[in-house]
């Protein structure tokens, strides 16, 4: 039994009388402690799948199961699944200090020892404890993303959903954040479901990857298949060609 089971999922948005089928009939399985990637271009529906898991997008068909149970968005869910959002400039409340942002999940769930937990969280993501009472606008994009990761881990979830966590960051900062994510995953035995448009990032972080286009699943690849360019579909190949680095040699 996989930790995340998505079967024939469809997500449809209705806006001003028109229907937009963001996701159509997508299925995937993620095992515990696995790192699974969703890759595609804009409009492929990859981020919508994450949002559907979180209850932020309306499911119009199919099912999502976490740990064998149907999806229920209650407090217990919050302690199992958390998300890191794409835009570090939009995912932290601009008027809350980092201390407030990090201690809030603890307050919501009545978990004590906030002081030490916040300090430890900052340390875990490599931020100095003197940043504790800073505001987001006093931090760089990479630092904000670290706070977002720390916040997601405050409730010690099993599953971390990552929505393009490094797309908005500079290359060198991206490297640091990817290293941080890898370390945290190893230390805490986390399961990752990660979305990205960058095949190289996905290749670095994920064990398996699902290529999506226009809301549909195109092809699922293992890392070995991706690295060896053994894709079956034309679209997956075109994505690979566009991303592969041809500078060296």
């Amino acid at each position, binding site marked *: 039994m996989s930790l995340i089971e998505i079967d024939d999922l469809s997500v449809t948005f209705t806006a001003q009388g028109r229907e937009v089928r963001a996701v159509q009939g997508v299925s995937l399985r993620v095992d515990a402690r696995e790192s699974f990637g969703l890759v595609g271009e804009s409009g492929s529906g990859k981020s919508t799948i994450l949002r559907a898991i979180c209850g932020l997008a309306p499911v119009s068909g199919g099912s999502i199961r976490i740990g064998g149970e149907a999806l229920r968005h209650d407090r217990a869910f919050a302690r199992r699944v958390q998300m890191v959002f794409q835009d570090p400039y939009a995912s932290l409340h601009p008027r809350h200090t980092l201390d407030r942002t990090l201690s809030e999940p603890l307050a*919501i*769930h009545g978990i004590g020892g906030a002081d030490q937990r916040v300090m430890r969280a900052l340390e875990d993501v490599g931020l100095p404890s003197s940043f504790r009472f800073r505001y987001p606008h006093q931090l760089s994009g990479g630092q904000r993303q670290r706070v977002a990761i720390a916040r997601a881990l405050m409730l010690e979830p099993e599953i971390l959903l990552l929505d393009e966590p490094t797309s908005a960051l500079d290359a060198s900062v991206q490297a640091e954040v990817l290293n941080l994510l890898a370390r945290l995953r190893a230390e805490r035995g986390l399961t990752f479901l990660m979305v990205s448009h960058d095949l190289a990032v996905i290749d670095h972080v994920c064990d398996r990857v699902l290529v999506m286009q226009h809301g549909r699943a195109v092809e699922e690849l293992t890392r070995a298949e991706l690295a060896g360019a053994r894709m079956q579909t034309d679209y997956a190949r075109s994505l690979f060609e566009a991303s592969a680095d041809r500078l060296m040699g």
Partner: protein
Amino acid sequence: MSTLTEWLRDPNPTSRRQAKLGQLWLGWLRLKRNPLAMAGLVIIGLLLVIAAFAPVLATHDPIAQNLQNRLQPPLTPGHWLGTDDFGRDIWSRIVYGSRITLYIIALVAVTAPLIGLMVGTVAGYFGGWVDAVLMRLTDIFLAFPRLILALALVAVLGPGIENAVLAIALTAWPPYARVARAETLTVRNSDYIAAVRLQGAGAGRIIWGHIVPMCLPSVIIRVTLDMAGVILIAAGLGFLGLGAQPPLSEWGLMISAGRKYLFEQWWVATMPGLAIFIVSLGFNLLGDGLRDVLDPRSAAK
């Protein structure tokens, strides 16, 4: 003093209070760069000082009549702004009148925005029928012209300054509800709201802790700009005899009383009129300056 500024500018605050005060200090520095806003602040500061020290600053008893001295022009010895038709010193009446003006402003500024904020954020956050009901309620109150409502209240409760304030507050809250609702609709879809919902936060915590702080700048700006209007409405009600009653030296009432003498003894109506003009201008200038400082778009950079 410099250690205080250093403490405020510390890039690594050690407590929430220090962080908050530091941000306020930076906002103050930005406001200081705007000379018009500073002018507005000075005017309002003067208003507060004059109201606080009224007994000291007034030269005469504002309600003491002196019929032999009536309708003296400005710059008469002892009455630098002149006297009105009962011989009362206009300067002293304006000084005591500032207290009444402040009383009206304070009451309205505390009640109307608060009600409007609550209604607007709840309507904006929940949407659906909650939104529809609350907004229709808002529309009903918005539909009342303030003077008509004041007339109605006076007919029921009798004239007086408290009833005038009640009437103003009841008609002043709807615009705040609309502003708060508009901000809420924008903020509601942000990632940080999604994040806290994902943590299991309930609607109350989200609205009060996350949405209201984002609405505050617009509401604060609106309050300062509204204050000018509130003063004028109160003056209008006073003018119609529906607000403050004689012998209170409310500025609008003073203008009304001076109407009869507008051509010959112009100062009786004009002096309180100037006071209203200056204070309204002060609030407008300050409100404009605050908008530049508090506008979330420039604050977010």
